[in-house]
């Protein structure tokens, strides 16, 4: 390869798109490193504090697309205080200063402000795509800047963000000349929507493929929108309450029949289930169905809908579907690859919730299943063993038993054997979330068998440091380890400090690690940021002395090439 001119090598590299592969290429030799960095357009940064924008741009000056992740995963569950960090503004400021030709920005768990959105909208002439997942800190005013200033906007995709809805006119800020939209997802907005502006926008966007509406868009508006956009591929229905005899509903039925490209359906944020039959004609084309926010859709209406969806690959549903409903899924959806069953009753007492039976049925009926997230009332080892036998191809297996330390409900044994069977059979397993009563034994199995495991979530599990040690020693590909309320302490934490070089991050909350243990770790590993988050009494930890035998409330450590971050709030102590 070294006898080819650079342009040829670069051309070959163009075909290599995965981040992992490109990273590997850059390590081959100096010449390849150089060619790779100048041709790299897409960069993925899994932890925004592992690097800073200046260094990023020095290495990849031709950056066009950036993915940034901020807060640790457990922030989703309120375990990380709001002001912890993950601020977008410094990144936008640096990117703007460097005049890089940014076109795409994808953010997860970052704190985004209206100011940063405004700056973003004004700084990059070719900006095309903004995807925000689980972010917060901004309002519809920020969206208005994006709409108004990004002349070539293709994607505006807002997924599950906390957005302050000022009920302004952000939709009417899209200029009449804006006709390039492909994705428009504002389902998470809570306020009123300017329906006229929305309809006009959709009417002038012939490339619109994905449209996800919020609950303020009623059924009659939906009907009009679908008439304007029969080319739609991905639809999120807002409010779906209407009289089945009304003209709007009839109009909607007719419009739906014309949407022959529709493959993905979601939303139904407020729904009159008997009107679902309007969608039956296109169900046989659906590959993705997300009804996890449609609390009012259950029972026979839900079942009827699913029975029409024979080509479904992805299904997100509430546990009100019940085991019986899952059996219908198992017998109908033979192409199913990904299933997520969410709890509909957070206090965990519903009779219609799902059990191990539903999971077994799915595993038996859906041979292509590779990803599952399953919230359930109870589980047994036998069921998990059966599931492992039926589905050895799991890549992601996340089980959440609502009562976090519940044993096998038949034998009262811990669920070690069940999860052990899963990791033993599923040789490609990359992500695993545990729950239920678990001892150190399950970790022995994980360390032994889960060779491809990259992310592991542990809660209320294990007996001694051995548990954590099995995992750290055994799982060579571990990237993200997050542990809460488990009895792992300093011995496990400090056993192999160099392990953390190969990992993105480690989270430990309400465990047995002490301040002195964390201090020792920070000393041994200057390339780690060791953060202690103590909301209650940050100062007292130092003053009381006690030789750091105090337990640390929350520990978050991650590798970084840029040292301590400067934007940490007072309750975050970086050792």
């Amino acid at each position, binding site marked *: 390869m070294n006898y080819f001119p650079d342009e040829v090598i670069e051309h070959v590299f163009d075909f290599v798109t995965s981040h992992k592969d490109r990273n590997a290429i850059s390590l081959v030799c100096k010449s390849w490193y150089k060619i790779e960095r100048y041709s790299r357009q897409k960069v993925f940064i899994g932890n925004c504090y592992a690097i800073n924008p200046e260094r990023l741009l020095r290495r990849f000056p031709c950056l066009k697309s950036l993915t940034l992740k901020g807060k640790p995963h457990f922030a989703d*569950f309120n375990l990380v205080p709001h002001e912890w960090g993950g601020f977008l503004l410094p990144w936008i400021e640096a990117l703007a200063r460097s005049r890089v030709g940014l076109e795409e920005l994808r953010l997860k768990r970052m704190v985004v402000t209206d100011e940063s959105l405004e700056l973003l909208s004004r700084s990059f002439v070719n900006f095309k795509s903004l995807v925000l997942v689980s972010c917060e800190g901004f309002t519809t005013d920020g969206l208005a800047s994006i709409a108004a200033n990004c002349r070539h906007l293709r994607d505006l995709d807002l997924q599950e*963000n906390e957005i302050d809805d000022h009920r302004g006119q952000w939709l009417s800020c899209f200029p009449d000349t804006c006709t390039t939209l492909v994705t428009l997802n504002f389902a*998470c907005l809570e306020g009123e929507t300017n329906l006229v502006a929305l309809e006009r926008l959709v009417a002038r966007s012939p490339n619109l493929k994905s449209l996800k509406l919020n609950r303020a868009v009623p059924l009659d508006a939906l009907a009009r929108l679908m008439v304007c956009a029969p080319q739609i591929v991905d639809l999120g229905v807002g409010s779906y309450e209407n009289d089945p005899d009304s003209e709007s509903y009839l109009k909607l039925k007719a419009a739906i029949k014309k949407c022959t490209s529709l493959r993905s359906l979601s939303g139904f944020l407020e729904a009159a289930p008997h009107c679902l039959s309007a969608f039956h004609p296109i169900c046989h084309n659906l590959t993705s169905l997300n009804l996890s926010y449609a609390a009012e859709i259950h029972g026979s209406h839900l079942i009827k809908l699913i029975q029409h969806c024979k080509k479904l690959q992805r299904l997100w549903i509430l546990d009100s579907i019940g085991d019986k409903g899952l059996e219908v899924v198992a017998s109908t959806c033979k192409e199913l690859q990904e299933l997520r069953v969410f*709890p509909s*009753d957070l206090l965990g007492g519903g009779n219609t919730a799902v059990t191990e039976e539903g999971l077994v049925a799915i595993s038996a009926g859906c041979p292509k299943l590779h990803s599952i997230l399953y919230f359930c009332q109870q589980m047994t080892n036998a069921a998990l063993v059966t599931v492992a036998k039926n589905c050895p191809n799991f890549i992601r297996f996340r089980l959440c038993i609502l*009562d976090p330390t519940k044993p096998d409900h038949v034998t009262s044994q811990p669920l070690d054997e069940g999860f052990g069977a899963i990791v033993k059979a599923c040789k490609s397993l990359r992500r695993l979330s545990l729950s239920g009563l678990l001892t150190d034994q399950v970790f022995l199995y994980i360390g032994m068998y889960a060779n491809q495991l990259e992310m592991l979530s542990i809660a*209320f599990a294990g007996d001694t440091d051995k548990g954590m040690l099995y995992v750290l020693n055994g799982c060579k590909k571990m990237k993200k380890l997050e542990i809460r309320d488990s009895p792992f302490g300093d011995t496990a934490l400090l056993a192999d400090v160099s392990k953390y070089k190969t990992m993105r991050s480690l989270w430990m909350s*309400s465990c047995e690690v002490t301040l002195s243990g964390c201090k020792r770790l920070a000393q041994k590993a200057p390339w780690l940021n060791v953060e202690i988050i103590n909301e209650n*009494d940050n100062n007292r930890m130092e003053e009381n002395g006690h030789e750091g035998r105090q337990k640390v409330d929350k520990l978050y450590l991650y590798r970084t090439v840029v040292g301590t971050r400067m934007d940490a709030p007072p309750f975050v102590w970086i050792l």
Partner: protein
Amino acid sequence: MEKVDVYDELVNLKATELRLGLPGTEETVSCGKSNKRALPNDTEKEIESTGKTETAFPPKAQIVGWPPVRSYRKNNIQTKKNESEGQGNYVKVSMDGAPYLRKIDLTMYKQYPELMKSLENMFKFSVGEYFEREGYKGSDFVPTYEDKDGDWMLVGDVPWEMFVSSCKRLRIMKGSEVKGLGCGV
């Protein structure tokens, strides 16, 4: 509901309690030090009898960050639950001139007339007759409500279900303020 009330009381007690333990070592909710082997039935008994939460495993609903569901999703489910399944949708009711407010559960009513009767009984007034165009006629009092968007609306204009899901609080307006709502007196 009762268990939640008991637990709320316990949390408050903990906040004002004087104790000898090191600060930050005992959290009422996340319990890494607790006896994780306790089965749910045992722990509920413990909570009610000892009044302590450090050895008991709190009811699953009160564990911080459990079940592991994104807060965005949790907020959505809670709203729906409160609205639809008899967990009660309690809203404050104020009446101009009354010394204190009341609370009512909107899910207890099926339609507007029931609600009006109940309000009339509660505050000892009469609301007049509702007309689609002119609003309420024949009384000094007008029932209004604050909707999800923060606007004050006349009670009775929208379908009942829509009203229940969007009503945040009620206010019975009286006298001179009433004129703005176009009510003929």
